């Protein structure tokens, strides 16, 4: 057992913390939210220079060759500042798909571009009807000459509006809900027949609806057998957002603590009330329990045994989801009216945690999967 960070990991967290403290103040972030893109290309380049984009990408492809713990530390820092750039979509989701499914040629072509920031990917798997069911894919792929053409629609594709290429799942065989028969494809964002409608999620991060009509596509990975890859991409997403949620919870906990000490009512700080001291302690307990589960997620994401991995990730998802909900709801509550305003940061953290919870299967979904396995 070892919970210590390596020297490299300490350097990483320090440099990221410095960068974000300098560049990601609440007001700076607000102006990014208002910009048409919804995030900063300048910062994206800085992340590339610092090696953050290449963090989980193997060194042979120009990456940093880091592991899940490095990603955890980075995502936690991103969560503390509510970073808006498409790291989760492009590096974590897109990058994992490419690493696991890409042919040698595809990896050679795309991973270095991903690491240096010139290529942005998005992972287009969910559909309007699919909710959290991974095998619920209706989009279809048909062979056309040497290549493929896709027809269908994808929904709530994270940063799907700004991606240069999209990793799209489609049926090459079988029907709705069938595990077999799903394949992954690479689609150029400029491809004919692809329409994208970008919008903001409730936390201000960007996503898109996609409509595909005979879109030319390149197969990524093995035909008909993409579901296990998709599952691993979602697991990577869960591990990364678990860490991000912890970062957001830390920020909310700190803000609330500060508020309890400074806000005066009835002639004394509201934190003098034991009711609020206990609530604050409960928030801390939830945060620490959540933190342990985010660590479990990071440690499990690369575990070789699929069943054990899935189980740990589902557990982490439940633990972090519940902790996140508790901490964010109480952070708003203890701020009173000010917590309800868009002007104040706590509500932004609240919404990020809320959005994360509804992305890769919610608490109920993963708890139900775990319940299946109770012996």
């Amino acid at each position: 057992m070892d919970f210590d960070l390596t020297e490299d990991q300490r350097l990483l967290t320090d440099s990221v913390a410095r960068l974000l403290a300098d560049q990601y103040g609440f007001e700076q972030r607000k102006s990014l939210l208002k910009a048409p893109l919804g995030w900063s290309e300048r910062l994206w380049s800085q992340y590339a220079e610092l090696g953050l984009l290449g963090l989980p990408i193997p060194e042979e492809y120009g990456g940093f060759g880091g592991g899940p713990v490095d990603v955890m530390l980075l995502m936690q820092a991103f969560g503390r500042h509510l970073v808006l750039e498409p790291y989760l979509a492009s590096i974590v989701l897109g990058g994992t798909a490419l690493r696991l499914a890409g042919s040698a040629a595809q990896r050679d072509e795309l991973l270095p571009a991903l690491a240096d920031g010139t290529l942005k990917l998005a992972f287009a798997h969910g559909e309007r009807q699919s909710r959290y069911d991974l095998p619920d894919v209706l989009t279809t792929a048909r062979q056309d000459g040497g290549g493929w053409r896709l027809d269908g629609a994808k929904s709530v594709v994270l940063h799907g509006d700004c991606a240069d290429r999209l990793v799209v799942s489609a049926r090459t065989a079988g029907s709705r809900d069938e595990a077999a028969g799903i394949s992954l494809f690479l689609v150029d964002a400029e491809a004919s027949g692809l329409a994208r409608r970008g919008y903001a999620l409730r936390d201000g991060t960007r996503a898109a609806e996609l409509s595909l009509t005979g879109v030319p596509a390149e197969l990524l990975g093995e035909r008909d057998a993409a579901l296990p890859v998709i599952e691993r991409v979602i697991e990577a997403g869960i591990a990364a957002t678990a860490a991000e949620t912890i970062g957001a919870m830390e920020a909310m906990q700190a803000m609330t603590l500060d508020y309890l000490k400074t806000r005066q009512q009835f002639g004394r700080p509201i934190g003098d009330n034991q009711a609020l001291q206990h609530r604050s302690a409960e928030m801390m307990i939830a945060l620490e329990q959540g933190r342990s589960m985010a660590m479990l997620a990071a440690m499990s994401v690369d575990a070789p045994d699929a069943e054990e991995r899935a189980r740990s990730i589902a557990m982490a998802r439940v633990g972090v989801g519940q902790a996140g909900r508790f901490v964010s709801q109480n952070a708003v509550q203890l701020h009173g009216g000010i917590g309800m305003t868009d002007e104040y940061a706590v509500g932004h953290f609240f919404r990020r945690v809320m959005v994360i919870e509804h992305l890769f299967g919610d608490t109920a979904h993963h708890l139900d999967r775990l319940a299946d396995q109770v012996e």
Partner: protein
Amino acid sequence: MDLRFTPEEVAFREEVRAFIRANLPADIRERMRLGHKPTKQDTITWQRILNARGWAAFSWPTEWGGPGWTAIQRMIFLEENLQAPAPELLSFNITMLGPVLVEFGTETQKRHFLPRAANLDDWWCQGFSEPGAGSDLASLRTAAVRDGDHYVVNGQKIWTSTAHNADWCFCLVRTDPKAAKRQEGISFLLIDLRTPGIEVRPIISIDGSHHLNEVFFTDVRVPAENLVGEENKGWSVAKYLLGNERTGIARLGTSKAAVRRAKEVAREVRTRGRPLIEDRAFRTRVAQLEVDMKALEITQLRVVSAFAKSGGKTPDPLSSVLKVKGTELLQASSELVMDVGGPLAMPAWQQELAALANEPAPIPDWAPAMAPAYLMLRAASIYGGTNEIQKNILNKAVLGL
């Protein structure tokens, strides 16, 4: 003891339900059904329809336009209106200002303001809270200084819901800064928001909507005849008002409508390959809410009955039970609705309802309002006295700890 409604009460519920069914305009009905907030015009339209029927001033004495209902009838009426779901009566006019004027107002104030408030000819807002005076309301500082037959008001209010829609504001102001007890130097003043020196600034809330405001007063001259009750006795007026505010505070009808909505949508969406409505954990969650709602329904009846028996004067401290449990259920039911929606509840759809020409199907109509309702209801345990303060009240007034 009998938990059943009398045949008359059952008939009354039917009458209210039938009236709402027949008279709630279709467009308003649809917006409300989908969980959206009523627009300003929706609220005005519906309140005027109810007023024409003689129901808007539902809790006022008959001489001031009330329908003369029993406490149970009033509760049934509110609940039917909420779970229709129809827009709520503007509480500032009906449950706050109206009863206050009936109890403390001058004859002139009653004659002028009450009919206009019932018909929503004037939209009222509540200017109590200030940046430094939230839970500790008695520490408010907005000052009113007597100058001939006017008061000159200076200061700032915050969290003033719907002030941007409002014509008038009832305010708590400090008229005696030297009073021995802070509560003794406060007065209750009616302020026309068109008076020079008033500035209303929007506050955007976490659901993205404009509901809240800051209101700034700079040398605002308010006719002294707009004082309600005696000078420096405004705290008793406010206490009376807040006591009244709690009668309908559980808003059980809204929670019931939300649970109903969650079940409807759960038939349309799936979890792990089958309809969500068939999922055991989902059903357990609904069942738990239904148990809690049932308990609260009976508790509410008990509080309402006791309130009626006391002559309708002293609000039962148990009304704090209604506020705490009622808002917990409002929050839990809106949370359930959002969770049913899943990923489709997360986009800020409203701003871009027009779909792509080639999008396969429009966004489901249930999706856009789910997250905003959940977000805005986080405030339910904050406004009207936070739930922590309600528990303090229960401790002091009932438990004596």
